[in-house]
């Protein structure tokens, strides 16, 4: 634009200068427009990241407070007894499972009427009743102590609320109103004395409890066949083992110390390794990401198991085998799938796929498949099948690019040496493009794990670690996912509360997962661009 000062003034035939506005030409405007856009997107991304971390980071402090209240108010102490009662309930469930097995056996094999079956099982029922009655004294004690501990915790939370109220008023400069807010001081040491004082009577209850169980067990009825008898023997052994744990529980309770500090690191590990995500509880909230993370991973794995062969197979076929007419049909079709909104896929999953899969699972000839038959139509399998649809276009497009990038001489040389087309594909083309294919799979994985709508609608939303003892059948169980829980709960939580921040931390975990996956994908492509050659 500006001529160099040293050069002599050139003479041009056209004297017209470009139109300038505020000293800028059109080119400058276009340049600054694009540059500005790039800058804005970088700034927005940075702001989102900062926001995510700022909102999420307070969680660990709040969770530390949450856990230390759990300890100081004696909830932890009462939970020792609660677990003991829960274990007893689990044993009772084992007994009722045994009853179901006997029931079906008597009804189907011996063809008895329901009334006759119930009569035949009356001695079993008496035994089960006696066994379930043994826990009552302990259960009553737990329910009393639950109330006491809850009351202490509530009192403490109210006092915390009052403190915040006063702080808020002071911030607004309303000193008089702040002074009028009544402050309650909660002294945990004196408050939990009534709970700790129950230890001797707990010991007494425990002793009689153990004695009663032991005295009930020999009355276990004889089972009609060996398999059931084995289960009954197992029950008796488990019940004895259960009573044997009592002294250890007593000892733990006796040495329990409400003053023990809750470290920040334990708040961190309670989140990363926590096996419960339990919110809006009247007792104690837990924020453990494990059940959600496992849910997300299981759904993604199922999706990839289905999508990887489909996506890569289609890519190889389209690039190496298909005629031009086929290419023109297949490519747009696969790419079109990614144009379907995921909420539509989700509806399809609820209304059609889930229902169809459940019907299929209940066919007698399909029983050999692990996990079949199942009764929950919203489960890992349904969500995984739909997510596979979402992952296929990503994997297909990227893998096809990778295969396309294999230099043509590779193929020609292979053909010239007399290799067949199949041999060329398997021995030359695929190995040469392997790095690209792997990164395609990784990016497909990233696409799937971040998907929200489909898993929210179709994964079943059960916040529990699936039962892996079912083997491959585990895929027919419902799960909840990291993305799903954010979508489901974010709308209604109190702004700034621990629950709100916990959801943000889940978001941060997802953020890091995406970051790692993308990093790995790029790294693999760069490092092993052409692995042979």
């Amino acid at each position, binding site marked *: 634009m500006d001529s160099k000062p040293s050069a002599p003034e050139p003479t041009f035939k056209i004297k017209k200068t470009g139109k300038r506005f505020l000293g800028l030409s059109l080119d400058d405007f276009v340049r600054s427009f694009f540059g500005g856009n790039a800058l804005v997107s970088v700034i927005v991304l940075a702001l989102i990241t900062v926001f995510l971390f700022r909102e999420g980071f307070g969680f660990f402090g709040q969770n530390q407070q949450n856990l230390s209240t759990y300890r100081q108010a004696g909830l932890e102490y009462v939970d020792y007894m609660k677990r003991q009662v829960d274990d007893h309930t689990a044993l009772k469930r084992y007994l009722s499972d045994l009853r179901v097995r006997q029931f079906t056996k008597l009804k189907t094999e011996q063809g008895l009427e329901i009334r006759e079956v119930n009569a035949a099982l009356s001695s079993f029922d008496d035994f089960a009743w006696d066994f379930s009655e043994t826990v009552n004294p302990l259960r009553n004690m737990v329910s009393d102590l639950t109330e006491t501990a809850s009351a202490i915790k509530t009192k403490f939370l109210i006092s915390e609320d009052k403190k915040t109220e006063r702080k808020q008023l002071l911030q607004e400069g309303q000193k008089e109103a702040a002074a009028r807010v009544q402050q309650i001081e909660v002294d945990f040491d004196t408050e939990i004395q009534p709970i700790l004082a129950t230890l001797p009577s707990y010991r007494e209850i425990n002793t009689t409890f153990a004695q009663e169980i032991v005295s009930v067990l020999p009355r276990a009825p004889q089972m009609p066949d060996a398999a059931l008898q084995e289960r009954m023997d197992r029950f008796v052994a488990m019940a004895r083992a259960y009573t044997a744990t009592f002294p250890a529980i007593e000892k733990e309770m006796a040495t329990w110390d409400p003053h023990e500090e809750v470290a920040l690191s334990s708040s961190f590990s309670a989140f990363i390794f926590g096996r419960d995500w339990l919110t809006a509880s009247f*007792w104690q909230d837990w924020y453990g990401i494990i059940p959600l993370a496992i849910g997300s991973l299981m759904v993604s794995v199922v999706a990839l198991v289905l999508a990887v062969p489909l996506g890569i197979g289609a890519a190889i076929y389209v690039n190496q085998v298909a005629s031009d007419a086929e290419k023109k049909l297949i490519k747009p079709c696969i790419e079109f799938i990614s144009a379907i909104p995921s909420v539509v896929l989700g509806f399809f999953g609820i209304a059609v796929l889930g229902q169809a899969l459940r019907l299929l699972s209940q066919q007698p000839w399909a029983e050999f498949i692990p996990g079949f038959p199942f009764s929950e139509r919203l489960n890992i399998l349904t969500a995984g099948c739909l997510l596979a649809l979402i992952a296929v276009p990503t994997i297909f497009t990227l893998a096809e690019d990778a295969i396309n990038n294999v230099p043509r001489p590779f193929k020609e040389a292979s053909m010239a040496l007399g290799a067949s087309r199949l041999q060329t594909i398997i021995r030359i083309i695929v190995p040469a493009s392997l790095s690209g294919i792997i990164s395609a799979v990784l990016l497909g994985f990233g696409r799937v794990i971040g998907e929200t709508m489909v898993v929210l609608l179709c994964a079943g939303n059960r916040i529990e670690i699936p039962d892996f003892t079912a083997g491959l059948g585990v895929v027919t169980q419902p799960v909840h996912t990291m993305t799903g829980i954010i979508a489901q709960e974010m709308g209604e939580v109190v702004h700034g509360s621990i629950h709100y921040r916990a959801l943000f931390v889940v978001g941060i975990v997802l953020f890091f997962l995406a970051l790692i996956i993308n990093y790995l994908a790029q790294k693999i492509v760069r490092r092993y661009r052409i692995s042979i050659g």
Partner: protein
Amino acid sequence: MKKLLLIAAVALTAVSLQAQKLVIKGSDTLGAKLVPMLAEEYRAMYPGVSFEIAAEGSTTGIAAIIDGTADIGMASRAAKSTEISAAQAKGVSMTETIVCFDGIAVILNSNSPLAGLSERQVQQIFTGDVTDWSAVGGNPGTISVYTRNTSSGTYSDFKKLAMNKRDYAPSSQKMAGNEQIVSEVAKNPNGIGYVGLAYVKAEGIKVASIDGALPTKESVVAKAYPYARPTFYYTNGEPTGEAAKFIDFTHSKKGQEIAAKVGFVPVK
């Protein structure tokens, strides 16, 4: 002369429009759907009245009566003793009128052999103490428990009303709304869930009686059905003027029909 009369009439209407503004504040259980619908019907009958409805929670409704900033306060819980004493201190006598009952129905698949459950069984099922239908008298099969999601008000209310404040079983599935619970229970013979009363007429499900009582008008009023709570209007002293007319309209046949339509149990 005619013209003059017309002007006078218009002026009168304008004056009455100014005067007849009914301020209603409080519970979002009532204020979300029922009271706005009642207000609409009421305005169709008396076009001169205008409404200001704010649904921000029962506490705000009771506070508004104490401060005199509302004609009617809506509440989904009874006023606490501290609130009544605070009102008295300000010379306000809180008068409560039951609007209707808000009930939660426990629903089963229509193929379930069970007709009803006991309160204890409901608690056992939703807390996960019992996981097989045979333990409560049904056909053997693993129970599938469907609940609302954790941030819903009904989720907590049901814990208070039916589960002795215990936590839901970890195996329960959290559904986005009433419709989704209905559709899952309707398709799953081993399903159980709970929904607002407006949703119980769907196909494929049936309402379980609790200790023999179905959530009907009679059983709820007689307190035989446990999973229901009354909802209230609060006023300063006996309601007068437009507020009294609106409360009467709420209790009229038409008003109670609207209440039943949006899923409440009518009282009259």
